[in-house]
């Protein structure tokens, strides 16, 4: 993919630099356990950010993803606990919950999409609204506390997060396969070309007989789908959801997308750049935990600096490649 997109090498150079910083800071950084942790951890934000790449490329924005993830997590937990009363087979219960999660994600995306297109409300306002709604709903469902998955179900379900295939944790497989599919969808299909067109100029796209509303609704539904997939691998990690689940995921996802080289104003998207962006964000947190050179009080400042530096590197490279 690197060779295919010369323009998008920026985020990968930034990723390598942050990686080298990690190696320099602590030798434990390179241990296989730590690398597996980083990849598995970045899969939540990464998957959500892959979806956000579509919405942002189409010229929209989705602020509701974090609370949507919390709400879907809460519903999955309640559903599984309820099914546990009547169904004995735990694998059936988990399958039902997984399908319900995907259905809810698609529906939530459809609602955001319809409100922005048919009701003609700014995506920023629509998703700010749904963000508040989902966040309150999950707090309400949990009575202000935490929803916990029954232990017997979680014993089985936790394998989805903690087990691995060929030494690589399942969440990482899911993350990279989803990114691969997203790359094909965005760069090799008519839908992808229409998406770029809508994001660059909605009017021109409309005059070119593109159903712009449909494209935008699809983008929001892809985002909802990605959120539900992230949720499916998030729930088995701690087996719980609360009002705190997924707080600020929307900002991290948007940051990953922008670090990855997608234009915030729409019209151009890079899926693998987003993947690199998500990895950079997770790496920064990990590196700060592996060192005591930085005062705890300054963690946020260091994160901010590295994010800005990553975007600077990314854009300089973009400019050089284009000229």
């Amino acid at each position, binding site marked *: 993919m690197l060779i295919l997109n010369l323009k998008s090498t920026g985020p990968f150079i930034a990723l390598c630099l942050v990686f080298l910083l990690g190696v320099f800071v602590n030798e*434990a950084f390179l*241990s296989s356990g730590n690398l597996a942790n980083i990849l598995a951890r970045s899969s939540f934000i990464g998957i959500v950010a892959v979806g956000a790449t579509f919405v942002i490329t189409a010229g929209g924005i989705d602020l509701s993803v974090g609370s949507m993830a919390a709400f879907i997590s809460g519903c999955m937990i309640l559903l599984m606990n309820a099914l546990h009363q009547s169904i004995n087979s735990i694998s059936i219960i988990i399958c039902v919950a997984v399908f319900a999660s995907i259905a809810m994600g698609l529906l939530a995306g459809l609602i955001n999409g319809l409100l922005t297109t048919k009701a003609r409300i700014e995506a920023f306002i629509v998703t700010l609204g749904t963000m508040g709604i989902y966040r309150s709903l999950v*707090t309400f469902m949990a*009575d202000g506390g935490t929803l916990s998955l029954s232990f017997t179900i979680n014993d089985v379900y936790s394998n989805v997060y903690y087990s691995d295939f060929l030494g690589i944790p399942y969440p990482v497989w899911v993350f990279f396969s989803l990114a691969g599919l997203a790359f094909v969808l965005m760069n090799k299909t008519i839908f992808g070309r229409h998406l770029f067109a809508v994001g660059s100029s909605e009017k021109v796209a409309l005059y070119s007989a593109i159903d712009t509303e449909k494209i935008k609704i699809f983008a929001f539904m892809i985002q909802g789908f990605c959120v539900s997939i992230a949720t499916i691998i998030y729930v088995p990690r701690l087996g*719980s959801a*609360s009002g705190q689940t997924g707080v600020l995921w929307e900002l991290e996802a948007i940051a990953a997308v922008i670090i990855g080289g997608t234009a915030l104003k729409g019209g151009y998207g890079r899926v693998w750049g987003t993947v690199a962006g998500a990895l950079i964000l997770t790496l920064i947190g990990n590196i700060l*935990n592996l060192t005591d050179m930085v005062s*705890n009080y300054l963690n946020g400042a260091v994160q901010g600096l590295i994010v800005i530096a990553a975007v600077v590197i990314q854009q300089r490279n973009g400019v050089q490649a284009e000229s």
Partner: protein
Amino acid sequence: MKHRVKSSARLEQIFVFGFLVWALQMPSFAQTLGVSVPAATHGWTGGLNFHAEETKDRLENQYPELKIVLVTASNASEQANDLEDLLTIHQIDALVILPFESAALTGPVRNVERSGVFVTVVDRGLTDPSIHDFYVAGNNSEMGRVSANYIKSRLDQDGKIVILRGMPTVIDEQRFDGFMSSIDDTGIEVLDSQYANWNRDDGFTVMQDFLSRFPKIDAVWAQDDDIAIGVIQAIRQARRQDEMFVVGGGGMKDIIQRVKRGDKLTPVDVLYPPGMISTAMELTTIKLLADAPIEGEYILSSPLITEQNADDYYFPDSPF
């Protein structure tokens, strides 16, 4: 026409009846108590709201002449607005408040106090302590000391520990300073401390990183039960549960349950009860209705919860 006359006569009756009901109720609603707390945004505040609601129902049943108005706010300025409403609309006689932020709410609470309302402050003290008539709080530095003393005795004054802190606030500072001053004179080495923002996800990731970084950890001080849940999960994933133990804090039912079971990974918990709001509401009600002397400070201790006494601190119905 006829119809209209009839309806206006009916209206008059309603008014007269309404006035009578109002007049009759006036003396019985002798006292109004306003309660202002932060909204349930995480486990501990969830428990706080649960206990506040429960105490409101109980007190109103017990004392028909008492009216309690409970309001929740999700930030400091919303809470300041709530105080104005409590004063002007509900005309409260006493206020129980758990301030969102000490400094920001000092002024608004002073205004309430100046209009003659009895003020009880809970947990987070105001910047000017002369404002409150009564103060109920947990003891954060004691909580740190109790945790430190347990870890000290278990490790025989020597060993390597990691600390997961909450958020950079006064509460966290007090806990941390209390803890550090108690291990000062021992051979216990703090490998590192990092903020885990009082939630499970950050507890999990921070602990994962501590585990990859330090080959030997004897104990973890998580100082909060939500963080502790994430920590436990990370330790299990690394299969290092036989090497260390975790000390949380708060009194969350899931953790108390583990302590009760004699779980080796979580042998104890340190209480910091969200039920302190009940203490404040009960005592303020006594002040209002019986005019018994309620003044000064009421500081709850932070006892160590062990396998032996865990039953006394287990509330299965609470969300926390």
